[in-house]
């Protein structure tokens, strides 16, 4: 199913048959998009949990 690797050398791979900018721009944007939309919610989740803990600690103190 998998035909052979298309590029003889790594520099060919980077060059992408002359369309290096377009292909890598697309995959770069795609990668940034994936990472951003997964990492940001996780970071936000950590801060929410921290706030919840701080709020809870606040409640325990003034009981």
């Amino acid at each position: 199913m998998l035909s052979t690797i298309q590029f003889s050398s790594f520099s060919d791979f980077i060059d992408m048959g002359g369309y290096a900018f377009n292909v890598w721009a697309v995959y770069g944007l795609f990668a940034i998009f994936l990472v951003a939309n997964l990492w940001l919610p996780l970071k936000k989740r950590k801060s929410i949990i921290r706030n919840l803990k701080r709020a809870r600690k606040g409640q325990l103190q003034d009981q």
Partner: protein
Amino acid sequence: MWVWFAKLGSPKWFYEISGRWLPWMSGAMVLSIGFATVWALLFLPPDYQQGYTSRILVVHVAVAGTSLAFFPLMAVAGAITLVWKMKLADMVAKNAAPIGAWFSFLTLATGSLWGSVTWGTWWEWSDSRLVSMLFQFFLMIGVISLRSALDDNDQSARACALLAILGCINVVVIKYSVEWWNTLHQPASAVTIGGGDVNGPEFWVVTLLMILGVYLFMGISLILSTRNEILEREKNAVWVQEIANDS
């Protein structure tokens, strides 16, 4: 049936179910996107007409297909919010809008990057798919700005639900009006985007794999942000306190 439907509506139930599904989905996503990317970049034969840019098409078709699903998703979530006043549906709709806007933007970016090679122009006004995606992007920005403008939560939930439904109808109307508009200005746009037959079956296998990966990604990012929303909105619920303690 209603018990199931009401249960579906409770944020706590959604939080638990999504908690269980998340690892599996993210594993499948990483596998499918990783595999498809490696396969597309390294092994895909160059297409005689587009050369290696068919690799762009793999990502573009996948992202475009998924972004088309966003407005119907928001419209259905809006209808549920309006009719059954289900908070969960509103949370999903609220988080779907930014992700949808990102998806539309990415579709436009990858589309024009591909177009700059095969059509020779970065933007093609006569192609109804591009123009309707552009206006889908604008409509999403409209929903997001209405959401942030209305500070009263319950009211903004319903207002954005109504706007999402109208927006969904509007995208379809725009698509057809641009297509008919097309006939006067430029009889037929040069190349149809589905270069499938040209690229042979292997291209389509990679693209389908990528589409699966991107759909999984959409589900995961939506679930993650909805879970955050649930934690914020139900912060004084007991089960949320427990989660905070033991995590």
